[in-house]
């Protein structure tokens, strides 16, 4: 299938066909199961639930609170992560001091942070925001730090030779040079943010998509539960796509991988 390497439309067709076949298989499977078992809702039932719940009656009460928590937490992680990453990349002493602390803190399984966070911050938005920000910042910190350490000597010498210094050096030379690494960190953290959003809403919340899915399961509303899971999947796809659009715009100068 070498032709797939060169054919963009070919890839789309192959992908769409495979997806359609999988949906068809799932559809046939659930249709046959739902006749005898209530734990398998039909596609029609899930779609009805999806339409009634997410288009758009629960958008204000569940989707928006979820998105707000995630964006605030992720935003804090992005800003703080880049800032701390630059500091650690620029100071050997601080980097040496921080390395053991960072290795420990980032090794704590994210879900384990929820009980202490609830004790400290209650079950409101703050808990979710703090946990998301805390866990998402490590990949951004470490990638930014590595990016700063990898800055090329010749590149920095060129800036110095031509008298590009201070704020201009940072904004015109250093930041663009580190940007691909920052985006690598942002991509990893986005998946973590969605994961933690849902987990934290299941453990401690009174609204949000994660809470909705959990509640539906508790109440044996399996069609609502599946509708929530599907929404979360779609949300992940959309958010990743939006980040990739931003990345492609910011890094539009970047050499495509197949050109190297």
């Amino acid at each position, binding site marked *: 299938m070498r032709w797939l390497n060169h054919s963009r439309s070919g890839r789309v067709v192959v992908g769409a066909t495979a997806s359609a076949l999988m949906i068809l298989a799932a559809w046939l499977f659930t249709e046959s199961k739902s006749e005898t078992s209530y734990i398998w809702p039909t596609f029609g039932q899930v779609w009805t639930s999806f339409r009634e719940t997410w288009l758009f009656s629960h958008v204000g009460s569940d989707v928006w609170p979820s998105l707000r928590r995630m964006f605030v937490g992720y935003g804090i992680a992005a800003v703080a992560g880049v800032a701390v990453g630059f500091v650690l990349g620029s100071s050997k002493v601080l980097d040496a001091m921080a390395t053991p602390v960072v290795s420990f803190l980032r090794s704590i399984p994210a879900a384990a942070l929820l009980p202490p966070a609830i004790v400290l911050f209650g079950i409101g938005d703050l808990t979710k925001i703090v946990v998301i920000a805390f866990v998402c910042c490590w990949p951004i910190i470490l990638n930014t730090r590595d990016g700063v350490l990898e800055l090329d000597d010749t590149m920095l010498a060129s800036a110095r030779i031509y008298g590009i210094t201070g704020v201009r050096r940072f904004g*015109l030379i250093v930041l663009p040079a580190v940007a691909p690494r920052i985006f690598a960190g942002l991509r990893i953290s986005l998946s973590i943010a969605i994961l933690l959003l849902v987990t934290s809403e299941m453990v401690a919340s009174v609204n949000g998509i994660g809470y909705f899915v959990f509640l539906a399961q508790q109440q044996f509303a399996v069609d609502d539960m599946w509708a929530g899971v599907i929404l979360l999947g779609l949300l992940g796809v959309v958010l990743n796509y939006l980040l990739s659009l931003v990345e492609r715009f910011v890094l539009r100068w970047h050499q495509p991988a197949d050109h190297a």
Partner: protein
Amino acid sequence: MLEVVGLGKTYGSGAKAKTAIDRLDFSVETGEFVGIVGPSGAGKTTLLKCMSGLLAPTTGQVTLNGKPITEPPVEMAVVFQDYSRSLFAWFTIERNVELPLRHGGNRIKDPAAAAAEALKAVGLEGHEKSYPWQLSGGMQQRVAIARALAYQPQVLLMDEPFASVDAQTRAELEDLVLRVREQFGVTIILVTHDIDEAVYMSDRVVVLSRPPSTVQEVLTIDLPKPRSQSATKTLPEYAALRTRVYEEIVAPENRPSHV
């Protein structure tokens, strides 16, 4: 105009100390083209870094127009060997050349015009909006040369500028540099390991000794100008000079007692 006086650089200290260059003395006159050659490991790059103000020497100093160099002076530009790292990959060709004129040490009134002139001089009109990776290696090095020229330096330092391109491109770039040298009236110091190149391009060649390096010999290259790849390189004088430099570098202990 540029004087290297008692210049020495020792890396590290104590038992591990390594002296790269030791009490170098030579000078470069305004408008001159000076080639610096030496055996590998002779501290050529160390010398270039000290001359450009990127590295503080351990002893001695380099002066430009009588002033000691401690930081890269605005009267100086440098072309590095590795164009893929010296150009800023996120800016177009045009912005790369204009950047030092807009945001760097030599902010001039009309950066766009200066950049256009320099890009024209190196034959890169029509590529202004490209990104560096879209050009061949030789073309990228032309961009680096254009950026240096647009900066309007008195002295242009070149560190193995043609070592990363193929032989034919190398010859083209050598001639290009000789041409723009006249056009922009710039003094050039070329650090190279290539003896042919140093003899072909230079007015004088400074030969460094093995490390810790000192100036082993300074040769005046009185070949006729303009130099030409075909005519100059077939002159018996050219052959004699390059043999002389070769012997200085490869077998200094065997050289005839002319010093």
